[in-house]
């Protein structure tokens, strides 16, 4: 994280692309995964990731961010781009800013792309993905941000605009559910 702070500072001061590329290589796989698990569509995930980094590249030097605030800023842009994507897809009528509706749009995308997942992730991970698919949208987001993207509770709370205690509770409940699902799958 110390490194990221220094890259951000150096890029802001010099505008040298070298520092931007360091930041890009660190965050790009994370953002890609964020889209990938939301959409289960490799091509769209790639397009949206590129679009996000174009925005980041244009705006980064105007901001004054550290690694933590950069994380929050980037994931907020990522979320907005995802909403725009659903609107363009013609799901604008279905879409509602309320998370429940958003949940409806994203839920089921894991299982409906099961063959794709098997090919991409392997059979073992497919089981895991099926288990994740049974979680609610919020639970899924929280555990992916926590255990895949390795964010701390505070950052997750700020990205999702929730209280820290709420996030902790969601993590525990999601892991309990996931543990049971995985156990059942194995049996």
């Amino acid at each position, binding site marked *: 994280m110390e490194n990221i702070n220094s890259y951000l500072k150096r890029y802001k001061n010099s505008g040298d*692309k070298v520092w931007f*590329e360091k930041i*890009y*290589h660190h965050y*790009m*796989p994370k953002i*890609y*995964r964020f889209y*990938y*698990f939301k959409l289960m569509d490799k091509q769209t*995930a*790639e397009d949206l*990731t*590129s679009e996000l*980094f*174009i925005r980041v*590249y*244009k705006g980064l030097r105007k901001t004054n961010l550290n690694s933590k605030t950069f994380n929050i800023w980037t994931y907020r842009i990522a979320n907005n781009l995802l909403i725009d994507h659903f609107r363009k897809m013609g799901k604008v009528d279905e879409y509602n800013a309320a998370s429940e509706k958003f949940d409806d749009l994203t839920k089921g995308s894991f299982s409906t792309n099961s063959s794709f997942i098997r090919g*991409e*992730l392997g059979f*073992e*991970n497919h089981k*895991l*993905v099926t288990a994740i698919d049974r979680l609610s949208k919020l639970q899924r987001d929280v*555990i*992916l941000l*926590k*255990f*895949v993207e390795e964010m*701390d*509770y505070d950052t997750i709370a700020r990205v999702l605009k929730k209280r820290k205690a709420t996030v*902790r*509770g969601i*993590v*525990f409940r999601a*892991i*309990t559910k*996931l*543990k049971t699902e*995985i*156990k059942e799958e194995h049996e």
Partner: protein
Amino acid sequence: MSKKLEKIFNKCISLIDKGYSIKYCLEKYSDCRKELEEYFAAVKELGKLKEVKPDSKYITNSLNKIYSSTETKEIKVPKTDRIRVGAAILKPALIFLAVFVFVGFSFAGTAYASQDSVPGEILYPVKRSTEDVRLLLYPESMKGSLHYKFLNNRVLEAGILLEIGESLDIEIIEKLLEEADSEFRKCKRYGYFNSSSEEDAVKMMEKVRQKYQNRYREKHKEKDGVEEGETKNDSECFREENTGQNNEQGSMEENEESSPGKQSNTEGKHKQQKGKESRN
């Protein structure tokens, strides 16, 4: 138990965030070791999803795409072009503004200059149009004063024509006086007058009518060279008619309560007819 486990699990997660290992946590909370092991197994499973990574080819291409997208936009609108684009918009806008200001000022100037014009002059129609426009724009409450102003204008115009006009144009003056009558009625309708101002207006109108009659008489004399006796008869006739008219006036007053000069106006008309007859 569940609450306690949740608390311990969250403590473990916080420790792991700080850099402690899972093993350390399991040893620290050995009471719940079995349950915690199950939880961390699930967490470990989730860690496998980190294997999902974009292609290295895509990573490079995407980076090029980012740079090219910003560069192409810079090329599209270079600084020099921006100025030209600005000028291209500004230039016609400025020309339009200049024309608009010029036309606006010239119209305002013309309207202002027309205020002193009298019938027969080029600017007189402009004056009348301005009056119509003002009548349209003014609120109902101010229309009375506006009609009073127009009444003054008509009387003034008739007065000027009578003073200056070399050849007396009867039709124009008659029309002006009729219009003055109509303005007077409108003033009354809008309740503009009080007793003194109504009297002033009546006097003013009477005065100009008198002037018109005198002028008409002079003109008549000059043109036809009519003898004095005839003129006398004429004036007697006029007087007779005038008295006759007075008899009828009672019934007429009901219809035209607001036109005080109407009587002398009709007198003028009668005189006019007489003059014509004598000419024949």
